[in-house]
């Protein structure tokens, strides 16, 4: 491994100063970064360890009804916070469907947001990858790409964002709080991750030195607690990234869907908010026909980027499933196999 500076700043201001240098990278638990460094994919010259920064590991209920989650809160701690799981059940289920227990114990909220794609060509230093080396080309495009993007991809990059956590978050209008050289700012999570376009190497809207300090769920996110699910199809029952996943959160009043929130995972370079589908559902009675119509709307712009046409069909079916399950009501407790189709009734 290359030699690098390791600094452990005492406060956020020092951290930002230390990370503003070229080649610097923040380090939280390193569940992704250390693998990337060992594989030679990332070669930071300085690691700025933020794990000891004070005050960033709290879950706070704010006066306006929103919830503020410090960037250093561990995935497992958040998912197992009883009130959190009750209030944002799809988020807790998504968290628990990800990685392994060991990784969830280590991984942080901010780190999860910042994890890199699992595209094998990104990890394979011998392959051309526009993310690693702008202008190099994309070897995934003609390569082994059955798991790659079907939405929002470009000729420059067909990678997907691997997070489960982000999928219900983006559906619930989560907000990211950022500290940087020019002070504090906020971004909707939906605007944090970028689609590749002409510049796949710019994966997020963060500038050099920017530190995600917290994640906020707005007050209205609570209104979906009674009808919220996360469903994830994967190639083994646990410890696998999503082939496709979906979060569905509904506000049902008087037998009608007042408001729907839908997110898709494993389909694009960012956690995908399915707004067209939400509009189809708004005001409708919850039934199979409208779910299908919504699912078609969600994928109407989808196109295969390789051997992955099945993901378009699968994404629609998983949206229908997530909607069916959400409409049936959030279960009293998170299922033993979180996110798994086998955690619940198989619908029809």
């Amino acid at each position, binding site marked *: 491994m290359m030699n690098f500076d390791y600094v452990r700043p005492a406060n956020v201001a020092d951290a930002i100063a230390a990370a503003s240098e070229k080649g610097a990278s923040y380090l939280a638990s390193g569940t992704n970064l250390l693998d990337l460094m060992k594989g030679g994919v990332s070669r930071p010259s300085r690691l700025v360890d933020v794990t000891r920064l004070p005050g960033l590991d709290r879950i706070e209920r704010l006066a306006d009804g929103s919830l503020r989650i410090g960037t250093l809160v561990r995935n497992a701690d958040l998912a197992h916070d009883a009130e959190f799981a009750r209030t944002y059940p799809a988020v807790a289920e998504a968290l628990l469907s990800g990685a392994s227990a060991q990784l969830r114990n280590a991984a942080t909220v901010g780190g999860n947001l910042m994890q890199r794609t699992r595209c094998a060509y990104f990890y394979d230093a*011998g392959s051309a990858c526009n993310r690693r080396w702008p202008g190099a080309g994309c070897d995934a495009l003609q390569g*082994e790409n*059955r798991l790659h993007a079907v939405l929002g991809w470009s000729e420059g990059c067909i990678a997907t964002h691997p997070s489960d956590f982000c999928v219900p978050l983006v559906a619930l209008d989560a907000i990211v709080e950022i500290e940087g050289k020019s002070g504090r700012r906020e971004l909707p999570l939906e605007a944090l991750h970028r689609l590749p376009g002409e510049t796949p190497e710019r994966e997020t809207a963060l500038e050099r030195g920017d530190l995600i300090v917290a994640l906020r769920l707005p007050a209205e996110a609570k209104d979906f607690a009674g009808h919220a699910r996360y469903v994830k*199809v994967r190639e083994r029952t646990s410890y696998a990234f999503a082939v496709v996943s979906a979060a569905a959160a509904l506000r049902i009043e008087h037998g009608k869907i007042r408001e729907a929130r839908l997110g898709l995972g494993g389909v694009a370079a960012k956690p995908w908010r399915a707004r067209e589908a939400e509009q189809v559902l708004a005001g409708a009675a919850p039934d199979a026909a409208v779910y299908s119509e919504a699912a078609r709307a969600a994928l109407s712009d989808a196109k295969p980027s390789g051997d992955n046409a*099945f993901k378009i069909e*699968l994404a629609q079916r998983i949206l229908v*499933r997530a909607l069916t399950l959400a409409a049936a009501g959030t279960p009293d407790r998170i299922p033993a196999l979180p996110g798994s189709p086998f955690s*619940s009734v198989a619908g029809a």
Partner: protein
Amino acid sequence: MTVELSLTRDPAHLRHGSNIGQPMTRTDGVLKVTGKARYAADNHPPGMVYAVIATSCIARGRVKSLDVAAAKRHPGVIDVMTPAHKPELAEDPDAKGNPFAFRMELLQSDAVRYANQAIAVVIAETLEAATEGAALLSPRYQVEIARVGLDAGEAYAPPVVGIGNPAEVRHGDIDAGMAAAAKLTDATYETPAQYHNAMEPHAIVAVWDGDRLFIDTPSQGMGFAQMRVAGLFGIPPANIHINSPFLGGGFGSKGLISGPQVLGIMAAKLIGRPVKLVLRRSQMYGPVGHRPPTRQRIRIGTDDAGTLTVINHEARITTSSFDDFYEPAADASHTLYASPAIRTAHEAVRVDTGTPLFMRAPGEATGSIVLESAIDEAAFARGIDPLEFRLKNYAEVEPTTGKPFSSKALRQCYAKAAERFGWAGRPLLPKQMRDEYGFLVGWGMGTATFPAIMFQGNARAVIRADGRGVMETGAHDMGQGAWTALAQISADSLGLDFDQLTFRSGSSDLPDAGIAGGSGHTATVGAAIHNAGAAVIAKLAELATADQRSPLFGAGNAGVVARSGRLHRRDDDARSESYADILARAGIAELDGTGSGAADAAAQSQYAMHAHGAVFAEVKVDPQLGQIRATRLVGAFAAGRIINPLMVRSQLYGGMIWGLSFALHEEAVMDRRSGRILNANLAEYHVPVNADVPPMDVITVDEHDPHVNPLGIKGVGEIGITGSAGAVANAVFHATGIRVRNFPIKIEEVVMGLAG
């Protein structure tokens, strides 16, 4: 418990059963769970430095340059071993001294034969420095187009497959069998490349002392390793001391010493200091063997009654561009089903990978999943229950040779497993069963089989003055508990209680125990131990029965029986004498004896020797999303004498899980242009996790085999995979009506076939 079992060719004074057959827990279990078991990479001799291999990222071509200077400038780097700077070898590593001397890349040239091949070794004071040194070499290549996959080149008939088997076998009249078929199932299947992925990576700590070499390295065959290393370095095999007390799995990849391990020895020689070299996980995808991909066409003909008329099983396999290992996939069709005409044939294609090698059930695993799937297809085509179809075509003698089986309790396996599973009443048609939640449910079955193989192994037994015993054999415990089972045999062979025995193993300084492979280690070394124990007890009996002062005087050799450290007269159990007393009176400090174990050629020429089993699987499939989950696995196995039921059950569990993995999960994904493996890590090379493993039932069916070897052991290391993979695949068909013929079964193949 002292059960006496009658065994042919068993010396009359031995009482097997006091320890054998007991479900003893691992003797090394506490060491392992407390971290005190010292694996190869745990060693750290004084002055030791670290070696890290730099690997090629191209699959074919040449290394044009390496920036050795940059690597050497890195703080802590001691030296860089390259084709231009290396210790000379006494033997060309590409020379084929014997069929098991597989070619290895030891920096003899700048040629690159596959991705992940070693192209240099960086030696440094720390692992980190060596790792960075390797990265700084920044190799430049002259790249040639990689040959990837089963269609990469002209197929040819290999000279042999597996270990010396003919590439093509014909039994009966194939054309007549085809003509007689009222129905012909003709299906082509593909299985992927798979990598052993033992939990413990290949590792070596090498220390030279003049022309003596001391190595800590995991090995399934220390004798073979000694010979190979001796040849390469031009020193006598006896000068090579291999210490291999524990293996974190091998599955065949540690059967022969690999190139990277030899590079560690070369690095130690180059710099004159002890060297540790440990492969990274990703580096295990190349130089240490793999299971090659196969494409298998199988034609199964049946007459109107559902009786087989022909099995014609053809396999295309890949091998490396530079060596010859041919996965005997089609050979799985030789022994199981009574067809009047059977043909198996292989063709091979050379590709730019490391050489494939023996991987747990080599040939049997790849062939079994295809044969068992195709048998299921044939039964379905005939409208016959898959179990009934198999019973209808049950082989009473080995079909391709006509030999009787030395023992074959397969019928009992079918019956017991089917009953435990609840197979009766299974609907013939697929997609008929749903559970209470709406998931599709399918039931499938497969027949398991594996040959009872023996190699050559030796043991030395000692009775000491204090009456305690010692058994020495250079055997290999891959984690399956071999030492415990072998110690149980040792105690019985010496007529001792388990705690009266010291069992020594895991070192090449002990009698060569052959190779732990082919599911034959317990049979082979067990026989050696049995004979060594018998030899010592015979000496002891001779001493006692010839001595007038002994209560055993005059009993004659066959007239005593050894038990719990005493010899008893067979005709009068009350008259006995302890081993210690016999030796003390004779003034002898210790008695020793040696024994060897090997297959009995005469018995082998008379009998077909195989273990058998039957596996039943239940899967559930999401009717819209296509996700598959195995929910039950039941296997019944007849594998001769069971030495330790606890460990045998674990071996069979492990094999069955591997079968499940074969059907649903495991696959090395290779880029079709570069020849690089894209999932060379345990996050994306999927094997089942706990949540994928269903409740499992393993039944062992009693089988007394008087022919296979003195102890009647057939071996259980590999059979669990066979049958299981096909059973799971057949259950997926039964659940969905979709016959997936590319393994592992992927979600898109199922989901697109379901209505949605």
